[in-house]
Every structure is written in structure tokens, then in C-alpha cells.
């Protein structure tokens, strides 16, 4: 309950400040106007549509990162020799900030879903990959010996032994990747991709609809918060 005190006080001061003309009206719209803009954007479906567009790209990127990360991670985790040979080349890509790939993704795919998902996939790959390698290395070695003596193929070994045993820690990596994917998707939209919540916020700001912009910002905050809560279950 005490957590609500400061936000409430801030909101009341904000509303009062803009009604009394203390705050600049162009950049700080009143909370009551923001609520109205929120209700309107919800009612005409634009907010939910934008949210879906952002999620679409975030989820597509997450799926690509998940599949690639788990597969690569399993291979590298199971074979130390491959890891020593291939690992450093992959590791060399890791320090590249994902946003530096935005212009490249644009060059390859043009505007739209695919370029956004590609940037998201690059950013979300690393937590999945690293957690999978660590998780696979932690799998009981006797289980692997057993699978070898049963002459399992690599895919059988993967699906029947390794992934079930390593699933808990891989899930941690996926959860981290989920949070990253939403952040990166919004970032790509804000920088240049004309779709989704990020683009709408920039549009609202340029149209001087700061009420709508704050409504979208708070909504985005809520969505991110809710997603985090759900993922922690």
C-alpha cells in the first residue's frame, strides 16, 4: 500500500500543476487528458493493434533466437572440441551492440517485420545460447554415456536426454531473452521501423499529441511489467 503513496502524490501534483499553469502544457499534458487519450486509443483499437505489431516482431525474433540458441548451445555444450574450435568465432560477434545491426537489417530486409525480428533475434540469441551451453554441460555425464551405449542419433540424444535434463536452466535464458526482445523491438521501431508501439509514440510526439504519447508510454510500462510478472511464474 505504501508503494502507492508516492505515485499518487506525483499524479495529484502533476494534474494540479498543469491546471494552475505551472507546468508547460505542450510537453506535460494533464493526467486526466492522458487517461482520456488512453481510453480513446483503446476504444478505437489502435493501441492494441500497435501492441500486437510490436509483439509480433518480438516473438518472431524470440522464436528464431530460441531455436538457434538451443540448437547451437546443445552442439557446443555436448562437444568440447567443437566448442574450442567454433566458440571463439561466435564469441567475437557477442560484443556488437544489437542496435548497430539496425542499418544492416534495413539494407537486407527493408522496412517491416523481418528486419525488426532479425535485430531482436541477434540480441535475444546470447542469453539463450550461453544458458544452454552451461545447462548442457551440467547434464549428468552417465545419462550421456547411456545414450551413447543405446546408439542414439544426435537428434534422439538431444530430444530424449539433453533437453529434458537441461530444461530448467534453458528456461531461465529464454526468460531473459523475452524481456530483451520486447525492449529491442520497441527500440528498432523508435529508431526507424514504421510499425508498432515505438513508431506510434514517435508519431504522437511529432504530432504534438503528448497526451497520447504519455498514454502509450504508460501502457508500454504496464505491458513490460506484466510480462515480467508472468515470466517469473
Amino acid at each position, binding site marked *: 500500500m*505504501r*508503494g*502507492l*503513496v*508516492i*505515485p499518487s502524490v506525483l499524479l495529484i501534483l502533476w494534474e494540479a500543476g498543469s491546471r494552475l499553469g505551472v507546468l508547460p502544457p*505542450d*510537453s506535460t499534458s494533464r493526467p486526466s487528458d492522458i487517461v482520456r487519450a488512453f481510453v480513446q486509443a483503446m476504444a478505437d483499437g489502435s493501441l492494441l493493434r500497435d501492441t500486437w505489431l510490436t509483439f509480433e516482431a518480438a516473438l518472431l525474433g524470440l522464436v528464431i533466437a530460441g531455436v538457434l540458441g538451443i540448437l547451437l548451445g546443445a552442439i557446443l555444450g555436448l562437444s568440447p*572440441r567443437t566448442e*574450442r*574450435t*567454433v*566458440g*571463439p*568465432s561466435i564469441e*567475437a*560477434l557477442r*560484443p*556488437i*551492440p*544489437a*542496435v*548497430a*545491426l*539496425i*542499418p*544492416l537489417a*534495413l*539494407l*537486407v530486409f527493408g522496412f517491416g517485420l523481418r528486419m525488426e525480428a532479425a535485430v531482436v533475434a541477434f540480441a535475444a540469441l546470447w542469453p539463450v545460447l550461453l544458458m544452454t551451453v552451461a545447462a548442457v554441460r551440467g547434464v549428468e555425464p552417465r545419462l550421456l554415456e547411456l545414450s551413447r551405449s543405446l546408439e542414439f542419433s544426435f537428434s534422439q540424444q538431444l530430444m530424449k536426454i539433453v533437453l529434458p535434463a537441461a530444461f530448467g536452466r534453458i528456461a531461465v535464458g529464454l526468460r531473459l531473452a523475452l*524481456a530483451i526482445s*520486447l*525492449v529491442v523491438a*520497441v*527500440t528498432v521501431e*523508435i*529508431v*526507424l521501423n514504421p510499425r508498432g508501439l*515505438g513508431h506510434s*509514440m*514517435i508519431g*504522437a*510526439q511529432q504530432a504534438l499529441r*503528448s497526451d497520447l*504519447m*504519455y498514454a502509450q*508510454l504508460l501502457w*508500454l*510500462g*504496464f505491458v*513490460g*511489467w506484466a*510480462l*515480467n510478472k508472468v515470466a517469473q511464474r
Partner: protein
Amino acid sequence: MKRALPAIIFALILIALWQLAAELKLINPIFFPSPGRTFGELYMQIASGRLWQPLGATALRMLYGWLLACGLGIALGAAIGSSRAAREYLEPLLDFLRPLPASAIIPVAILFLGLSPAMSTLVIAFGSLWPVLLAAVHGFKSTEPQLVELCETLEMRRGEVLLKVALPGALPDILSGVRVSLAIALILAVVTEMQASLPGLGQNILLAQRSFRSPELYAGIVVLGIIGFLVNHGLLVAERRWLRWRAASV
């Protein structure tokens, strides 16, 4: 060295394949320049000195925002972490703000500050504040209660306790937060340069893309990757050095 040999050979094979694929134009050369052209461009930029100005601009932008975030994060973290009341009032609000994508406040920052360097610094500081702040709250929260009692019997002032006892104890947490923050600061420096057309590496790679100068684009990505690597490893080394006293005492 012998163990590293396969890795080096593999990397060289990859680069050779990249060169071959580019020479044979297997992939559209508009977005797939050969490594020769990419590193040639990078060499030209270094030799002619064209690299340093945007590199410096981006690095400074990153550092200003980051230093602001560190100062603010540690101070706020000390205030919140060492007081139960402050935690009860503020933690839910922080919980809500933390998952907010830092880039989402770019429109708000533009509204207040325009497309200016101040806008960029504000966004970087806001985005890279959270890891430091959360780590500092955690670090200060877990100060040994017996140490605090000892300070009370010694009648030390609150500020003194924070500085001499709580801060060194919280340092390991803070340093790891600070490292994550710097990585975020680099990302946001690039983002704000692209969004607000501020001079720097971020704007350069976007301009290279717009005029289809792909070797320049790739060279820019390589440079940003190198900065990312140096930033992370530089702080890791610093962390190890500053925390040596702790490893010895444990």
C-alpha cells in the same frame, strides 16, 4: 597456443569463405561486401584519421550519460538500500519503471529537450541508471547488521557509516551493476545518434546504409563491436583489481 590453433584456423576459414562468397557475388554485394573491402575501409579510416572524431563523439556521449547514471544510482541506492521506510515507499515504483524500455523515453526526452546532445545524455543516463541503482540497493541492503551495531556504539554519524562501512561492502554489487550499465550506455548512445542525427558512429552507419556504402557500414559495426568488447573487459579487469582486498579477506 596449440589449443587455440583450431579456433584460429576455423576463423580464418570463415573469413576466406566470406571473401569467396563476396567475390563470386553469391549474395547481393549491396549488403555483403568482402572482408577485404571492409577491413580496407577500416584501415583507410584509421590511416586518414577520419575514424577518431565520430569514435570520440560516441565514446564521450556514452561516458557522460553513464557517469551521471553511476553517481545518481549509487546515491539513490544508498538512500533506498539503507532505509527500510524508503524501500517500502519507493520499491513498487522502481519495479514499474525498471522493465520500461529505455528507448521508450526518447519521445518524452525529445519533447522536453529537442534533438539535442542533452536529450541523448538524459536518455543514456535514464537507461543505464537501473542496473547501478538496483545493484546498489541490494548491496546497501545487505550490509552486515553487526557492523551497523558496532558503528552505533562507536557513535559514528550516518554519513560516515555509509561511506566507511556500507559502501565498501556494497562495492562488489555496485561494480557488476556499473558494468552492465556501460554496455547499455553504448547501445543508447548509438540509438540516440541514429534517432536524433547527432554526430557519431551510430549516425555514420545509418548514413552509410542510406547511400549503400556497405563496406563503411560493416567497418562501423566492427568498430562498435570492438568498443563493446573493450568496455566490458576493461571494467572486468578493473573489478578484479579493486576487489582484490575482498578475495584476500574472505
